[in-house]
């Protein structure tokens, strides 16, 4: 395929700049697109992109997915730019990803959804399988892997996953979508020390003040009043 000759990252840069740039123009805000990133890079070298567990294909998929679920707009930069791919990579590389607190004895039998997760896969393995299945499906449907789709196609593909329409083997595409959305929102709203929610952007977006030491007086003085304080993270107290 012709696309294979295009180095993946370069291709992505182009797509990302086109999508995110529009948002930046609309709002006049910074840190939304690759163009802004490049400008910043001349001032301070960008952090190298390193992965604990994701391979290159998976990393590009996750970046494209979090940018679709959390697109750049006037409220926050894109999912990737607020650290969500980093967050997901670290979560999948650690205890959670490797099945901590997950009962893993067989037999593994299919069950009603209400009985909960019944696969033999750890979350790390489940994401690997979900990414592979999604890319297979987008290749069949659009002729390309998910991260190479246009933003409109990514949105459409994500909606298809959400509805459970693509047929996956062993689990439903809706189940993979749920896992993807859950971990993305965990990273978006978790304390920034885990790698997502960079600069507390998600907390600022909603007005969550993080973890001040006490609201003993504020519970009364801010009754039905906006509490408009700079959020505090664990690092701010450490």
């Amino acid at each position, binding site marked *: 395929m012709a696309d294979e000759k295009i180095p993946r990252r370069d291709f992505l840069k182009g797509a990302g700049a086109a999508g995110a740039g529009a948002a930046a123009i609309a709002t006049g805000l910074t840190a939304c697109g690759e163009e802004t990133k490049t400008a910043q890079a001349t001032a301070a070298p960008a952090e190298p992109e390193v992965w604990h567990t994701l391979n290159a294909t998976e990393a590009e998929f996750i970046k494209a997915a979090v940018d*679709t*679920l959390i*697109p750049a*707009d006037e*409220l*926050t930069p894109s999912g990737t730019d607020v650290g969500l791919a980093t967050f997901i990579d670290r979560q999948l590389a650690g*205890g959670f990803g490797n*099945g*901590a*607190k*997950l*009962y*893993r*004895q067989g*037999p593994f*039998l299919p*069950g*009603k*959804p*209400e*009985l*909960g*997760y*019944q696969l033999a896969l750890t979350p790390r393995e489940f994401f690997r399988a979900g990414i592979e299945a999604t890319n297979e499906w987008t290749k069949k449907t659009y002729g390309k892997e998910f991260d190479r789709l246009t933003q409109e196609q990514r*949105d459409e593909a*994500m909606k298809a996953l*959400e509805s459970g329409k693509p047929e996956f083997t062993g689990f439903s595409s809706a189940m993979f979508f749920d896992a993807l*959305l859950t971990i*993305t*929102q*965990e990273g978006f*709203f*978790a*304390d920034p020390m*885990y790698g997502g929610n960079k600069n507390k952007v*998600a907390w600022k*977006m*909603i*007005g*969550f*003040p*993080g*973890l001040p*030491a*006490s*609201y*003993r007086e*504020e*519970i*009364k003085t*801010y*009754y*039905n*009043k*906006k*509490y408009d304080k700079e959020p505090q993270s*664990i690092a*701010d*107290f*450490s």
Partner: protein
Amino acid sequence: MVTKLKEVDAVVIGMGWTGSILSRELTKAGLNVVGLERGAMRTPREDFAIPNIRDELKYQHRHELFQDTAAETVTLRHNMSETALPMRRLGSFLPGNNVGGAGSHWNGATWRRLEVDYIVRSHYTQKYGAKAIPADMTVQDFGVTYADMEPYYDKFEKLCGISGQAGNLKGQKIEGGNIFEGPRSDHYPNKPLARNFAASTFETAAKNLGYHPFPQPSANASEAYTNPEGATMGQCVYCGFCERFGCESNAKASPNVNILPVLLPDPKFELRTHAYVKKLNYDKQQKKVTSVVYVDTRTGEEYEQPAGIVILGAYVFNNTLLMLYSGIGTPYDPVTGKGVVGKNYCYQYTGSGVTVFFDDKETNPFMAAGAFGSIMDDFNSDNFDHSGLGFIGGGHISAGLSNGRPIGTRATPPGTPKWGKEWKAATAKWYRRWFDVSGTACNYAYRDNYLDLDPTYKDVLGRPLIRMTFNFKDNDRKIGAFLSQKSFEIAKTMNATIVTPPRYRDGDYDSRPYQSTHNTGGTIMGADPSTSVLNKYLQAWDAHNLFVMGASTFPQNQSYNPTGPLGASAYWSANAITTQYLKNPGPLLHA
């Protein structure tokens, strides 16, 4: 090889609320007591310290303080014809682990059961006729009354420094408290907590409709407090990191704060952590437990601890598992209705209500205590006429967000996409401008909702997992429809921008979303050994030196959180042991 240890006066299994209470009461009576806890030590100073305790991802979503489901869990099926599958990760409920148990990460809602809650079968039969109770509903009376338990509620409330407003002092009704409660001998030790926008808005709306709202009785201390044991609590700072977390202010009552500081230094008490009890050795002839076998989880070595008295204070599932696995009492058979161990497993029926959104208000959900809000009991228990309703029991309706932790506590109006720009805009707009008005209902026992040993799946010690056969029933769903409609009617008077349509759980029991850690039954108490595992003193009918504590003793579940009732019944049982059993060890009641 099992190492046999020297006999002690009493061994206590599990160091949550009931194990800590029994350990304290028995050492005070002069007994040498060994406490066995499968988990590790937890001290507020070391383990619940700021800032790291305020980590939503770790504590709430990665289950830091909860039972390790890789080692042990339960299996679930909706009815007897299905194959049960393991709950491979926690969701619907969150049992605790480590010293303090779930008592270190609860939210602090502390109730007294209503008078009728103790006599469910006889009350409804008498008032509405035998047909009011469906044929396969196996509700029972407790064998004790509210009046029996009152002094022990008072004792537990004072241990915990409960903040609340009395509604019935020695028979005198007090407006602003819960006028439906049974008569209490004293006020709560602390005044009610502050109220937030959600609670005040609900309180006004409920009052205007003629209902009787009152502040949630709470183990989050509204003032600094010293309890009768001499343990001290700090004042609640409304940090919004309560349930799922330990409290860095010592303001949430827990075994770790309210008992262990005086119990641990007592030379009559020895705590062994990482001591995972596998089995009780049972002498069927003598009707006695002779010893407890536990595994040191650090080394894998097994120990046998002989004891004069055995207190079983684990969680509902392990209490039932240890009785079944050790062969104590007759396992329940749902087909014949005979047998008792595993019978009357119940849960909590939550989430019957609405969400309200206000585009011009600030609810500040992040300023909150765990047990927080305004509640009404006008549609709870038999506080209202059930004629023609087609169900028995009911629930309390409340409002008052306990937190604004953003991974788990967000709402957007119906129809909002779950992701993308529209989701972001709606989340940004509404995060600080909503709350739920919602009912929490009782869950009554049925013939075919029960616990037994799973035929297939094993725990880390090689024992069968507990198999839960459970589903919600029509009685629950009818209460749900009723409470959600009442919640909707109240919410409609609040001048909210949006009131969602009423919702309730009308499908099968779903193990995935959190509902409540109020699992009950399996080793139930009662007046008759053919229908209960324990007598009214929580003494096993089949082993006179075995006393079983906690929510596994409830014949059915009331709408309220279980900690108040199980704390009171622990003190009630401890009193029977120290004043009656020690003088004359043997059955305290004869069938």
